[in-house]
Each structure stands twice: as C-alpha cells, then as structure tokens.
C-alpha cells in the first residue's frame, strides 16, 4: 500500500506544479519568467508520462521540449524583449475567463458523465521497444512525411528569419 500512496502524493504535487506554472506562463509580468514557467509546466507533463509507465516518451518530451523547444523560445524571448513592455489585453479579461469556464464546464461534464473515467489500468504496461516496431511498420508513411515536414520547417524558418538582402 505504501508505494501506491506515494504515487498518489506525487500525482497531486505534479498536478499543482503543472497547472500553476501553466497559469504563470501566461500571466507572469516578466515574460522571461513566463518562458521558464512554460518549461517547468512541460516538465510536469513529462512527470505524468512517467506515472503512466511511458518513461521513454517522458525522456523524449524532456529532451525535445525542455532541451530544445524551450531553449529556442527563451532565446527568442530574450531577443525581442524590451525593458518597458506594456502588453495589451485583446479581449476583456472577464469575458475571456467566462468563455474559458464555459469550455471547461462542457469538457469536464463530458469527462465526468461518461463511465470511461473509472477504468483501471491493466497490470502490464506495453514494452517501450514496441514504439520503434510500430512507427517503422504500421506508421512508416508518417515517418517519411514527418521528415519532409521537419525539413520544410527548418528551411522555411531560416528563409523567414534571415534579413532580405538578396
């Protein structure tokens, strides 16, 4: 029983960290703090992956999201940031929160109403070596298309980011 209790505690700590830093990412006054909070939030999601027996995916998430995407985001934030930065609010914040609560209510009701939520996980988790087998047999077209998408992303991003001097 002891181990299960520990997993529950870890789950709730992770939930608090993830949600709080996700809110902080959007609401922090200083946008560099916001970017760091985003990285922390992504780390929290990786923690959920570990709890779901998807350690390989968690490591993938940390290496790609925290190690690469977050670094690129923080770098760009430092590049475009200025000392006195007044951020304009697009819509009235109250209206935004109202719309958001509506979305949350709808989706939450769907989750709570259906009986799918009470499922219990199977004892054995699938082995992570199956990922390689699956993406190279069943989903092999996705890999090829993904390589093209990634290539296009790099080329497009560089074409956008360079100064146009011919």
């Amino acid at each position, binding site marked *: 029983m002891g181990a299960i209790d*520990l997993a529950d505690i870890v789950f709730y700590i992770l939930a608090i960290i993830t949600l709080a830093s996700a809110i902080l990412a959007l609401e922090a006054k200083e946008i560099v703090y916001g970017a760091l909070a985003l*990285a922390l939030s992504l780390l929290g999601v990786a923690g959920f992956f570990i709890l779901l027996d998807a350690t390989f995916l968690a490591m993938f998430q940390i290496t790609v999201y925290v190690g690469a995407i977050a670094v690129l985001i923080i770098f760009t934030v430092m590049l475009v940031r200025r000392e006195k930065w007044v951020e304009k609010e697009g819509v009235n914040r109250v209206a935004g929160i109202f719309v958001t609560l509506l979305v949350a209510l709808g989706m939450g009701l769907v989750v709570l109403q259906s009986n799918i939520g009470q499922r219990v996980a199977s004892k054995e988790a699938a082995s*992570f070596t199956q990922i390689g087998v699956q993406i190279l047999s069943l989903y092999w077209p996705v890999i090829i298309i993904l390589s093209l998408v990634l290539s296009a992303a790099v080329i497009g991003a560089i074409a956008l980011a360079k100064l146009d001097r011919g």
Partner: protein
Amino acid sequence: MTQIRSFSDFLIRVIKIVAVLAIIGGIFVVATSFLQIMFGMSELPLPISPSDLITNPSALISLLTGLMDTDFFRISVFPGFTFVALYGAIAGLWERKLLAKMQMRVGPLYAGKVEGVLQPIADVLKLLFKELITPKGADRFLFGLVPVLTVVISTAAIAVIPVSEHWVIAQSDFGVLVIFAVLGFFPITVLITAWSSNSKFPFIGGLRALHQMVAYEIPLILSTLVAVMYSGSLNLINIVNAQSTYWFILFAPVSAIVFFICGLAEMERSPYDLPEAESELASGWLAEYSGMNFGLILGIAVYIKVYIFSALFTIFFLGGWLGPNFLPPEFWFILKTAIVTTMILLPRGVLPRSKIDVLLRQGWARFLLLAIVNIFIAIVLIQAGVIVPGAV
C-alpha cells in the same frame, strides 16, 4: 561582519560557525529521517546498544552491511555524491599539478606537507570566507538559483551511471536517455545566467556557451547510438555486459573519437573553452559570480561533469568494469575512468583555443556527418553478421 581584531571577535565567529553547523546538522537529520520513511529503511535491524557492541562486535558488521544495501547509502556515499565529489577534488588537483609539470612550474605546493595535496580543502575554506556579490540590476532570484541548479542537474546524471553491476543507484532501462535528458537542462541554466546577470560579458559568453552546447549535443547523442545498437539496450549495465568479448572501441573507433571531442565541447574544456575564455571574456558567462557561487559551478559542477563524461566513455567504449578477475570490477572501472579523465585534462596544456564560427561549423558539418556515417557503418557491420546485437 567586521574583521577579526580581538580574541572576543574570534570567539563570536567560532560560536556562529558552530551554530550554523548545528542548524545544518538538524536539517540533515530531518532529511535523513524523511529519506528513511521514503526508502523503507525501517526494515533494517534496529540500532544496537553499545553494550551489545562490546560483547558481540560482529553485530556492527551486519549493521554496516545492512546500511550499505540501502538506497540512501548509494545516493550519498559510494556511487553517489561523496564518491564523485572526492573524485572531482582529486581530478582538480591532478589537473593543476599536471599542467604545472607540462609548463615547467611546480603547481600547488604548500597546503599539505607533500606536493600540496590539501589544496582542494584550502580552496573550499577560502571560498567559504568570500562575500557573495550580486551585481546591481541583476535578477536576484534567478542569479542565485543558477549555481544550485547547476550542481543539482549534474548530480542527477550520476544516478544512472553504474560503477559495477552491483554498485549503481538507479538501475534504469532508459539510462542513456536519462543522461541526455539531464544534459539538456544545461543550455537553460546558461541562458538564465546570461539574462539574469545584467552584464555584457556574461551575456556574450552565455550565448556562445548556448550555441556550443547545442551544436555538440546532437553528434554526442548520435555517437552513442552505435553502442546502443550493438548491445540492443538502453540500460548502461547491459551495454557493458555486451562488451564481454570485445570492447566497442574496436568496432566503432570513429564514434569514440566523436564522443570524446563532443564531450570536450560539452564540458567547455580546452580547446573548446571559449565560452569561459579567461583572457578575452573574463570567464564568460561566469564573470559576475564570486565566492562560493563561482566555486559551486567551476569547482564542483564542472568536475562532476568531467567524471560523468569519463565514466560514460568508459561504459560505452572501454568495457566498463570488465577486466581480469584478480582485482575487483570497481577497481577496473575507476582505473579506466581515471585514464580517460587524464586524456580530457591533457589538451589544456597543449592546444590553443578555437574560434566560435570554426567551432560551430565543425560541430554541425563535420561531427554530425561523421556520427551519421558511423550509424551506416554499424548497420553494415550488423547486417554482415560481424556483430550480433544483444549478444552477451
């Protein structure tokens, strides 16, 4: 705090030190009991009374062996923090003596009777009595966070490194990925430093360090992929056991060289130490750090990193703890790691510093291509039947 001018000043200082040590000890006791609950150390035999010890000394041995089997002992002492910190201190002293001998100097000489062996302790004591300066306009929270964060991250990586089949903290099936996930945090700490110092030298040095770490991370990851393919596992213990007949350096020499050079660049060691170039950038991204802040990064974290890369090189390419049977496997592991560490320290006395554009172009154009070519060579070797993946 004023200078010590009289005996009473001295007494006050000593009392303060004792008080601080008592507080730290209290924290330590609380943390230990917390860990005890966590790791179920209550299953241990209960602490025996001193009278038992006199009548039955062998009870002490059973107590000690019981203690050595706990996770807490592993984390704190042997393959864990104390061992690595000691290794790092010796490596630091060894580096200074080695460089001095190469440059016809004497190096550390006075601390300790023999050849300055107590120099690391003297350094730590000196740094403890230095003031921690935060530059004006700096972001105090992030600025103070970075030294702690650097030590924490580099400590996390030693958890999955096995010293022998028995002595490992976390027997993870994802050891290689854990190492690279942990290494992925270092660019963020560098970026935080660059931004939070509010000074131009750390900014320039930090961006250099960022680009350098990023450029050499991919070739580093891909050069270890060959070892993973040969052994068919991400578990570092399985990777070593797969080398029982031949070391992987025989089948992937180019991969080993790529790993070594990219390791040098990741550790910011000479000839790739330009993010913290003393003579041109005033220690680069560390320029604003003083006292123990500086000591934590350059004195502890850097040498833990040196240990990590030496140990990884040993595990991936030099057969880990495998060796003749007349000595324990731990000895072979530490011997090989020490040799690799010496190889890492040597270029500082020999090679001049590289240039940033040359460095980045080398990393992306040469080493990445070499690593990819190596993967194809490995495919050919496996398809030709020279190596059977997963063979132990």
